């Protein structure tokens, strides 16, 4: 059996978070009733002219700067010609030669912790098409043009990825980046962030690329991974059984977990691009670029590096905590409360209890039921010895469900840790007296029974005995002291 190498390049369409469309003053809000946000420009009425949205240009430049790309001082809009009912003009305004953003790159983390640089060939501005709906209509399709003219940034990668996992890592990194930059809401269910994958295989060691297929309609990270895995297996089977891959567009069907050929798109592959005479060349001067540069936030990699060095966190922890601006801000607010020396404790709680509570309830961090100040307050009580880490989890659950502060819950439930030696000693005496057989066995050398006694005393004190004190006292008493 031949050893195959997989080669993947992705084209990602990110809807830019502008209020109005790229070439018209119609709104871009998601979910409006059909065609209520489609104006004469979007509908391609005769005599209308497109006028470019400055904010879309600013967002594209912001992205370009974040990936270290060359920004074109002069770029051109072109018509991409094809016929489809949801494209009223018969062409999509896009960019072909001279896109606004040139070559750049981003870094992804591989499973083994190594970093890999993925080249970005270009990113260009274009308009989205409308939507075709088929359900509930007999022998007809319904066209909703609300989405027509929504600004898109199409981000084209180099064929630098070598597995479905790498492709997903790249896509996740871009997703994180556009949200950090606040240029795209990243909502994949609503189609704000979509992906087409170019996939080919070649014998390992071969320098020439194999023939590629383009898979469309990938609107979740999981689908990207599954569709690529499926397509790779299909191509290898095909070649090994004597066939050959044809260059074509394939559609991923998530219900059947398979890709199938889209013949209609093949016929349309001759797009006859030419410069759009309705739009003059776009000029972007140095001053504009530098003004945009000043609006760049701390980027994910920078934030992760700062977390790792300032708070002595592992690379993994730092990455998880900088996965979104909101997560990073929350973590930093907790650290501010408990002090940098306790950053690791804060990290554990944000990634542990907090994240699992958010996941369980399907909430984003900005909808958390325990705010950063409240979590900081809880951690203070662990740090000052009022409660143990174990009890703190119980307190956290109560904070989450009741919306009260840690101190109020500790008081109301009487969860304050027992730190009085006398009280702990009394509990130990009672437990020892009730378990003479275990005591005898322990003294005869069954050391493992120490854990049994710890458990019994904890049970007797409702889990509130200070663990360190309990251990020391118990050791002394079991030893016969």
């Amino acid at each position, binding site marked *: 059996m031949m050893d195959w190498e997989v080669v993947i390049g992705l084209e990602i369409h990110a809807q830019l978070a502008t209020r109005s469309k790229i070439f018209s003053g119609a709104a871009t809000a998601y979910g409006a009733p059909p065609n209520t*946000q489609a104006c*004469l420009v979007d509908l391609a009425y005769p005599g209308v002219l497109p006028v470019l949205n400055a904010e879309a240009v600013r967002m594209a430049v912001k992205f370009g700067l974040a990936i270290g790309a060359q920004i074109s001082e002069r770029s051109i809009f072109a018509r991409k010609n094809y016929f489809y*009912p949801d494209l009223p003009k018969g062409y999509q305004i896009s960019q072909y030669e001279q896109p606004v953003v040139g070559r750049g790159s981003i870094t992804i983390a591989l499973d083994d912790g190594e970093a890999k640089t993925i080249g970005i060939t270009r990113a260009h501005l274009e308009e989205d098409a409308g939507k075709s709906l088929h359900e509930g*209509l007999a022998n*007809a*399709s*319904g*066209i909703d043009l609300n989405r027509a003219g929504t600004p898109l940034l199409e981000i084209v990668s180099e064929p630098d990825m070598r597995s479905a996992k790498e492709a997903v890592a790249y896509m996740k990194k871009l997703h994180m980046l556009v949200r950090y930059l606040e240029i795209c809401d990243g909502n994949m269910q609503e189609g704000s962030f979509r992906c087409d994958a170019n996939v080919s295989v070649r014998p390992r060691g071969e320098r020439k690329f194999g023939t590629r297929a383009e898979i469309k309609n990938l609107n979740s990270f999981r689908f990207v991974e599954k569709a690529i895995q499926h397509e790779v297996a299909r191509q290898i089977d095909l070649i090994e059984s004597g066939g050959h891959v044809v260059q074509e567009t394939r559609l991923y069907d998530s219900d059947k977990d398979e890709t199938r050929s889209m013949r209609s798109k093949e016929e349309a592959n001759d797009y006859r691009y030419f410069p759009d005479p309705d739009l003059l060349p776009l000029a972007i001067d140095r001053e504009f670029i530098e003004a945009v540069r000043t609006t760049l936030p701390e980027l994910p990699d920078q934030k992760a590096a700062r977390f790792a060095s300032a708070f002595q966190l592992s690379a993994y922890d730092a990455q998880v905590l900088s996965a979104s601006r909101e997560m990073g801000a929350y973590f930093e607010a907790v650290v501010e409360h408990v002090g940098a020396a306790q950053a690791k404790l804060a990290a554990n709680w944000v990634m542990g209890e907090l994240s699992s509570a958010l996941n369980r309830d399907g909430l984003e961090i900005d909808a958390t039921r325990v705010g950063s100040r409240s979590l900081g307050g809880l951690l203070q009580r662990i740090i000052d010895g009022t409660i143990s880490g174990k009890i703190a989890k119980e307190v956290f659950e109560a904070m989450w469900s009741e919306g009260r502060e840690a101190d109020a819950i500790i008081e109301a439930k009487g969860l304050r840790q027992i730190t009085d030696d006398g009280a702990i000693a009394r509990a130990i005496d009672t437990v020892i007296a009730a378990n003479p057989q275990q005591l005898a066995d322990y003294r005869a050398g069954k050391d493992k029974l120490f854990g049994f006694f710890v458990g019994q005393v904890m049970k007797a004190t409702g889990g509130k005995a200070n663990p360190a004190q309990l251990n020391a006292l118990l050791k002394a008493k079991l030893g016969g002291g």
Partner: protein
Amino acid sequence: MSLTRQEVEKIAHLARLRITEQEMPVYVHSLSAIVEFVDQLAKADVAGVAPMAHPLAGQTQRLRADEVTETDRHEKYQANAPAVQAGLYLVPRVIE
């Protein structure tokens, strides 16, 4: 440069034009004549001439502020449409 019949058929298909058997030779001939006429440009010496993307040399695209200036007037716009249902424009069924 003259066009072949196959090329004219492809262009017609891409443009969604139906050309009859009788019309085909006429199109092959006249389209070829147009292409040959324009082809004279290929003889021009353009060394040192920067490519233009637009005839209005030196002018650049004006930008507009990101503001919603359009209101919902779909009923008025849809008065022209042959078929509408629940706010959707209806077209012959297209499905992948």
